[in-house]
């Protein structure tokens, strides 16, 4: 871990100014990231700093803003989550458990109780890949860590890697769970940047690796996520998060699916929302699969054919081909289970 300047921000405006100033003092990005970073829960940032993967010259501790930016507000129109809310606070919120089950479940099934007590939901959606070749700097080839150096995972051990959204430069999996719930529920991100506040659809937040896997989001230097807004919708209560892993708990997903369904009285699907985790380089919305379900009765067969569509463009490597079948089964299982929910 490199030395850094440690500062505490009292307001969000100060924080963004501070980070911009930090960037101005040191214009060379390191490891593809900005030289100054916000510190909230720290569970991913300090982990990566200890590994020397991230080397910020400055940390702006924004935990002092927690009170101002951690509110959980439920209204008839929307669920608004302050970005500094802890994962555990959102996961345990009774109204979220009842009305937005996929949100609560995606958080409860992530990480451990301690990590959920520490990590902010804003930081959570920005957590970086678990790719070993990225996390260990002694591997020389990692385009995400060191642009232009290559990708050791392509022909390396890639059981955990992505089959969707990969490029010839990066196949690292997006590791989170909560992002899939936000993706499925059409969440909007509130961002405070140097030029003020703006909103971004959550589906526009992450960038597929393409030829620049070091650039993971559309956030700009100095931007800080302040909230997520999930619009109330007819499908939010019939939703769930299905996470498949080797271990019963405390493991990143091999495959996961956030699904939400609006089913009419006749049992036909009016609307479907499907987002995939564990199998893609970014939180992955399966729109073709969603469209295929509309107007159909959701039974195992329709679910399975939709699930196949979700993996239409999948590109396996040596050790991760099983994720295509697993991902399809996960989606199928999630959809069938969601259809039977009492709402």
């Amino acid at each position, binding site marked *: 871990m490199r030395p850094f300047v440690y500062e505490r921000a009292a307001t969000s405006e100060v924080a963004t100014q501070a980070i911009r100033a930090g960037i101005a003092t040191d214009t060379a990005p390191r490891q593809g990231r900005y030289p100054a970073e916000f510190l909230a829960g720290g569970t991913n940032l300090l982990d990566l700093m200890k590994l020397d993967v991230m080397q910020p010259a400055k940390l702006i501790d924004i935990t002092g803003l927690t009170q101002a930016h951690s509110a959980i507000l439920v209204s008839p129109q929307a669920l608004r989550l302050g970005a500094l809310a802890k994962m555990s606070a959102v996961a345990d919120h009774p109204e979220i458990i009842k009305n937005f089950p996929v949100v609560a479940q995606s958080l409860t099934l992530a990480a451990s109780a301690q990590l959920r007590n520490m990590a902010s939901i804003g930081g959570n959606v920005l957590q970086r890949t678990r790719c*070993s070749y990225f996390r260990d700097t*002694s591997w020389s080839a990692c385009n995400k860590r060191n642009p232009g150096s290559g990708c*050791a995972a392509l022909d390396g051990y890639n059981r955990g890697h992505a089959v969707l959204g990969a490029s010839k430069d990066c196949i690292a999996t997006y590791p989170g769970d909560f992002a899939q719930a936000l993706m499925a529920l059409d969440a909007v991100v509130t961002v405070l940047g140097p030029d003020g506040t703006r909103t971004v659809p959550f589906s526009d937040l992450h960038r597929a690796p393409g030829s620049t896997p070091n650039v993971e989001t559309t956030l700009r230097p100095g931007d800080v996520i302040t909230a997520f807004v999930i619009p109330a919708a007819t499908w939010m209560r019939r939703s769930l998060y299905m996470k*498949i892993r*080797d*271990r019963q*708990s405390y493991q990143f997903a091999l495959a996961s699916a956030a699904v939400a369904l609006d089913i009419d009285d006749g049992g036909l699907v009016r609307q479907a929302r499907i987002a995939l985790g564990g199998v893609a380089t970014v939180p992955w919305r399966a729109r073709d699969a969603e469209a295929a379900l509309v107007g159909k009765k959701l039974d195992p067969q329709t679910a399975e054919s939709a699930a196949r569509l979700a993996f239409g463009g999948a590109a396996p490597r040596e050790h991760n081909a099983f994720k*295509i079948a*697993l991902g399809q089964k996960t989606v199928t*299982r999630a959809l069938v289970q969601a259809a039977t929910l009492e709402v």
Partner: protein
Amino acid sequence: MTVAAPTPKANMGQPVPRYDGLAKVTGSALYAADFPHLDLAYAYLVSSGIAKGRVKSLDVREVRTLPGVLDILSHENMSDAVAHAKFFSDGGPVSNSVVPLSSPEIAYAGQTIAVVLANSYEAARDAAQRIVVDYDIDPASATFGSKGAIDQVLAEQSKKHEDPKVGDFASAYAAAPVKIDAAYSTPTQHHNPLELFATVCSWDGPNLTVYEPSQNVYGIKNGLAQQLGMDASRVRVISPFIGGAFGSKGALTQRTAIVAVAAKRLGRPVKLVATRRQAFTIATYRAETRHIIKLAATPDGKLQALSHEGFEVTSRPDPYAVAGTDASTRMYACPNIVSNVTIVRADRSTPGFMRAPAETPYFFALESAMDELAIALNMDPIELRRVNDTMKEPIKGLPYTSRSLMACFDEAATAFGWSKRNPRPGSMRDGDWLVGWGCATAAYPTQMAPASARVSLFPDGTARVETASHEIGTGIYTVAAQTAAEQLGLPFEKITVALGDTILPPAPVSGGSITTASVCSVIAQACAAIRGKLSNEAVGADLVEALNKRGLGAIEEYAEWVPHGAKAGAMQALYKGAAQPIGGAKLEDRMQFAFGAQFVEVRVHSQTREVRVPRMVSAFAAGRIMNTRTARSQLMGGMIWGIGSALHEQTDIDTNAARYVNTDLAEYLIPVNADVVDIEVIMVPEEDKLVNPLGIKGIGEIGIVGANAAVANAVYHATGQRIRDLPLRIDGLMPSA
């Protein structure tokens, strides 16, 4: 009595709560990295990012200028600082005969290539991460089938190994009506004790004190003295509590000498706490294995022929092998047996002991094959074991000192409800979950080693036990105190125990499930000597009274105990830290084994194929059980290791680079609390007066031995899919898309 403290049955001791319980629940138990030191400097290792080649240059210019950095050790300034010592299989002290920093050569990935010394941990880590290494890279062989890996017949490489064989396998196999021929594999695994590999070295003039978690403090003392060219009497090793070991802390690793040299050079104590990632390469591991098993039987299940071929990966310099055919060929009556073991040399660090080193992989193969044979015979798998049960091993016809295998099967089967099993695969289901039940035999050699101890009795009715054994979680503090209490007739509370320090009388390596049998035997002998001196009959208050009558301030007895079958010179080897466990299948006149039967229920999701183990029942017969509480815990721990080993644990190898990739506890999966639901441990009473005077067999390892196969057999029963390669993960169970 709670579940955790089972009521003792015949030949079992009381479930006394742990002697060290208070220290452990209050955080006051001191592990190696916990001792306070004045003026401490910190070491941080720089590890090789390549598996084979050499260091062309180390750029340390930037690093030397960093505040707090004191020195950087590398081959440039350490080349002759540490003397070569022999690999432990060759009678030496070290777990890996490559001496890091002795040259620029790199023999395996993760090899230590430099060490930063600094005033703080933060500065040392930063500096180590900034060192720029330039390598000459040679192609490296990772594992089985890698280009450049060399196969060697173990029997030709090691004088200690002889392939068990008897009769005429080929003819019997050809003639038999029912046959199985199958190949199995097990993966690389790492012990991953929760405690990191820490070493603190502190010099006081010519005297060196080492704080290190160890399963063999006398091994470190003597081995380190040899490496540093000093008198062993000047080395003291302190290790009162060890945060898990499982074999990884048995032999001397190369880090200790480096830290000692660093402390000498700085004139300050130096602390190394190697990272979790480094733990995968600075100590040992369970190497990957392959097996080919051939079984043949008569239609009524009597084995006619058995062949077990084993293949094991090892390093270039050290011929490490577990050679589990010693046990796997001797479990069942069979007239025609053949076996062999091949070692495969690759560019890896040297493997080493890990919980039931030989039995875990070799019994996975054997007991999976037995299940396959039972299915081929259309026979209940328990009955197949029963018809082939024997009180004489088949190779030389030596008798077992005791063998309660079928008693274990019967008790465990009853508790498990085996009679309700529908043997047809896929026939049991709970909603979307396929349910399967499987079982397997467990066995572990009963071994012991020479041990010494001092027991003192005082006029106030207290007694003290001193022996340099090791508390790795087994409960040796507790059973040592129980033994003295029992033998002297004193309350448990009146006994104090000192362990884990080379100023104490030597005890052997705490590995091979030998500790309780060896250490309690010598404690009992010392207690008997005290009784003999004071009054042969008296115990308890009468014994203390006899002491007081004579006006003695204390009576102190030093004892040495040597197990049956020990070779000449075994006791002297103990004082050199090189006592060899003896027993199992290695005796000339008899077989000493503990046995068990393991039953598992698995659930496999019908669609997504994840495997869960909601229930496990195992019964073990292992001679005298000293303490039903600590024994149950240890057996349970072994069983849960079996779940992890069967379902999760695998160190993933990038075969192009010959490097591990999942080197942390997020990606190397050991069981978590939620993976473990209903575990029932049955201790079957067994008396064996031959193994040692107290009749103790040892229980640290047997719990894992049959578990892998029991899980695989249950998965077959659930799904009809026979998985012969561990771990049994979704990948192998998922029909391809």
